[in-house]
């Protein structure tokens, strides 16, 4: 969003400098580029006189179209002509886009390009090993295109370009973010210049919810087109959060217990993040906790409006924003009462829904756009106590520890016996997800899937996004004959880390089409 403001300023300055051009054509070009309406921008260029300014604008268009070498050639030519005065806004703008064109080529190298059969999505992979993602990404985007197209009333008339980078640091080459920014905020995906740029889950230790992330970015993409890039941050982020899982589910997943607790506390203490504070970026809020609260606020605000006013309510807002109405006024219009009244109704309802969550001790999870592999962290769980110290000592903890030590020495049956002893101690231990996971995985190794399954269910309920647990649950279900359940669990694993080789072995067994089975078998490693 900061970039958009900077760009607007640059364009304004450029317009002032290029006073010999028809002002309407320049305005049209700027507005069209900003709204990602590239055919209109190209039409606006048609009337412009030949020269360095026009060449520079053609270079900018080429960048938006994803033709980076062409963009580099045109922008270099415009700058080398000497017609753009040194230090002028036009020259600065051209240099900015030239750097992006060059950075994009460096980041992607010689990319592997793949498109889906309908040509609606094109993916550029910086590293061919990431081509593994393509079929799952195409499937998700197919579903998202259909569902979100209906929901938001917009379907792109061009191929959506998605670039998959193989190093988070490369984001610095394709955006004006610095390396420090990227490492500090853990940025993993961005939608800018009519493309979605993401980091491959392969380069994060446990992966990350990459499919929901790509759809989250796709919502931003659609909203930019739908509102001609006039939606403020809170509206963009609120709808992106609300709809990021729509491709796989009719309803948005409920707020996590930790998010509910944050929201409840902020409502009671009147300490909400204001909509103004969310600008220019939620990522710039002072803490992860405030950022999480901001997301919870805007997601539930728009979710509440949609519950009460339905799909048309959301579209009324988007139409009004596209037409230049202030977003708060647009929301008030869709609600049918002043904005303050909507906020009052929403706050009262959310207080009611989150009642009881204020006392929850659920911990806030890292946002999905953060790098969970926090290399800088020095707090080593091993230093905080023994591996089952959370059980609070006593016989359960003792037997669980013995289970770990026996497992580490390869005595799996004896380990399982000790874990069972630990679980027999009390109800808390029986419900403990960590203990359940250890024992469940052990039973799976001992080829006792029926014993493993209920234990892995306990672990998965506690951490549904942990791909290794989901993969183990999928295997256990497959072995007890629950093929549908297995598919669902393995899909959960895929959504976070599709690089777990064993997942593909089980998917090959489950495949109903021969081409799918062949593909999954080729990825299977035990």
């Amino acid at each position, binding site marked *: 969003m900061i970039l958009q403001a900077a760009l607007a300023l640059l364009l304004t300055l450029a317009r002032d400098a290029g006073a010999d051009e028809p002002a309407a054509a320049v305005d049209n070009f700027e507005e069209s580029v900003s709204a990602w309406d590239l055919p209109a921008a190209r039409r606006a260029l048609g009337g412009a006189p030949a020269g360095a300014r026009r060449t520079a604008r053609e270079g900018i268009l080429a960048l938006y179209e994803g033709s980076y070498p062409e963009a580099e050639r045109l922008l270099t030519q415009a700058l080398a002509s000497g017609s753009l005065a040194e230090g002028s806004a036009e020259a600065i703008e051209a240099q900015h886009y030239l750097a992006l064109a060059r950075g994009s080529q460096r980041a992607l190298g010689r990319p592997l390009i793949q498109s889906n059969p309908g040509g609606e999505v094109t993916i550029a992979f910086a590293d061919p090993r990431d081509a593994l993602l393509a079929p799952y990404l195409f499937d998700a985007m197919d579903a998202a295109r259909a569902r979100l197209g209906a929901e938001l009333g917009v379907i792109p008339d061009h191929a959506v370009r998605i670039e998959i980078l193989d190093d988070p640091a490369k984001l610095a080459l394709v955006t004006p973010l610095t390396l420090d920014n990227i*490492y500090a905020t853990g940025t993993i995906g961005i939608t800018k210049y009519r493309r979605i740029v993401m980091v491959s889950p392969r380069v*994060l230790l446990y992966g990350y919810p990459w499919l929901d992330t790509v759809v989250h970015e796709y919502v931003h993409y659609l909203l930019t087109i739908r509102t001609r890039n006039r939606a403020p941050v809170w509206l963009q982020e609120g709808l992106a959060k609300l709809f990021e899982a729509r491709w796989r589910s009719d309803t948005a997943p409920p707020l996590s217990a930790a998010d509910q607790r944050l929201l409840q506390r902020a409502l009671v203490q009147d300490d909400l993040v204001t909509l103004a504070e969310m600008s220019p970026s939620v990522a710039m809020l002072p803490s992860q906790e405030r950022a999480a609260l901001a997301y919870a606020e805007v997601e539930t605000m728009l979710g509440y409006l949609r519950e009460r006013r339905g799909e048309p309510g959301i579209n009324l807002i988007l139409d009004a924003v596209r037409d230049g109405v202030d977003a708060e006024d647009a929301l008030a219009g869709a609600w049918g009462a002043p904005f303050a009244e909507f906020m009052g109704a929403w706050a009262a309802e959310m207080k009611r829904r989150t009642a009881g969550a204020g006392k929850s001790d659920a911990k806030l999870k890292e946002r999905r756009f953060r790098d969970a592999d926090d*290399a800088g962290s020095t707090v080593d769980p091993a*230093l905080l106590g023994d591996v089952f110290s959370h059980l609070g000592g006593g016989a359960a903890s*003792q037997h669980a520890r013995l289970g770990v030590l026996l497992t580490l020495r390869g005595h799996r049956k004896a380990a399982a016996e000790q874990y069972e002893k630990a679980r027999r101690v009390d109800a808390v231990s029986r419900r403990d997800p960590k203990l359940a996971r250890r024992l469940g995985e052990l039973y799976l190794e001992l080829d006792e899937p029926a014993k493993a399954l209920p234990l892995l269910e306990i672990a998965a309920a506690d951490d549904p996004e942990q791909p290794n647990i989901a993969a183990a649950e999928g295997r256990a279900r497959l072995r007890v004959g629950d093929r549908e359940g297995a598919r669902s669990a393995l899909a959960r694993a895929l959504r976070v880390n599709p*690089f777990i080789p064993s997942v593909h072995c089980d998917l090959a067994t489950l495949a109903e089409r021969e081409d799918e089975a062949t593909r999954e078998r080729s990825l299977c490693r035990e």
Partner: protein
Amino acid sequence: DRESEHNQNIAGLQEIRDAAVDHLAHRMAAPVTHGDLATARGLFAEGASLLSLLATMIDRLSVDTLAKERDAAAVTAIHRRLHAVYRDEAAIHERIPAAAEAAEAAILARLATINQRQISQLEDEIIRLDDLVDHQIVDRIEQLVARLQASQHKLLELLERLKAGDTSVQPAIEQLQQRIREDLRRISEARAQLKKEVDGEFLNLDAFEALQARMEHEDVMERLRQGNVDGAIERAKALLDEIRELRDTVQDRLASAPAERMSPQERARMRLLRELSRLQDEERGVQSATQSIYQEWRASVAERELEERDAEAIAKEARALRKRIEGINDARLGRDARSALEDALEQLDRLEGTRGALATRESVEAIHDAIRRASAGARSGEREASQLERARADAARMLAHAREHLPNAEESVGDAAIERLQGLSERQAGLQGRAKALLEESDAEQLPDAGKAALRGAASSMEKSTTGLQERVTSGALRDEGEALQQIQRAIDSLRSSSPPPSGASGPASTESERDRTLRDEVMEAMRERPPDGFSESVQHYYEELLR
């Protein structure tokens, strides 16, 4: 050396724990209910081997100066309890002829019962051994982190000097970074030993390349190579914060050791150690901030020269002082005092060739300090002591003159720095108050006399530093802050080197000789018993190992 011997002992304890875990698994898998006498005998022999390993470890820990006395006591207690069950098992085997391939049902039932007892006992002792191993490792991490923290402080200081234009510190920075990397590697190895995560979880190994790139980007040396000294300082400060956080975590872990393994005195020692460490940290913070203002001041006055008249006056005083120093019989002084006098003469040589006001002042300060150190090495009442006392007075006069020619910080570094100095003097006074209060607390009883004296000295130096900061004499404040830091370190060292009393689980032996006697008595008592048929040789070997 002592450290590698201690590391071998930690590894040895891990091996014993693993042997005990294997033994437990074997006993759980073979409950000796089906008349399998060979298995029962095998388990019995395995138990003897485990006891033998434990006995050897008791000896090794007894001579390991880096191990705590209570650790050897804990291993002795583990040995004693396992040995008691072993004796009962031996009594059953004794009743079975050596050549027998089967045994009566009643004997087998007794073997099954004793196997259950062994399992229960091993379940307890393995946890104790595991705690012991982890505790040793955490102790080692604590020492490494303390050293790492000291290196990081030094690095920050050198980086500040580099920022002020002193490029001569670059080789020292590289050396220090090398040492820091080495210590980080050691800490990482020790932490890996603590981890008991079971393998099998799939990780994307390609992520390590990205993590490596991130670490390189954030490396202090990398930033220096890019000419980004501010970035390097910022990164070094961030690392220091991380090290502090790590140290707090380690100390928490040490302090939250199971209650039966840590006495109230040990907890008090831990609290005291932690407070001293914090005090030291915060004093370093004050010193670092003072250093920064001092460097600003140095930069602002670096170009000033003395008037010829003033330079001549100081030179005259220097000549007189040299004459006085050369008249002292340095053979009557201690080694440190003699070395201090040499330092003073060296600074006098340096003074002769300079006209710079700053260089003059720093040389005179160094001379004053050297003579103060030399005075401490002379015997009171002897001629050399009074000569040094007069030299000290001369140096003090010279110092007053040298300071006249340069402004103090308040006149040259601006209002912002004056505000910072004011804030620093308040922080310093607060730390002094905390040091004094610490001496009054009941935990301070754990501090040996030398440690108490050092902490009192630290409080006194802090008081002087407070005055120096109030008077804007940053160089003097820096010296006093350095002194305070040294005294706090002495207090920490005295606390670390004082042996803690053994705690509950370590049994009745409270000194090394008592422990030896306890062990010897037990062995002698055990030797009086006749080994079961067929086990004479292994039991004999076991006792030999025990007494070796």
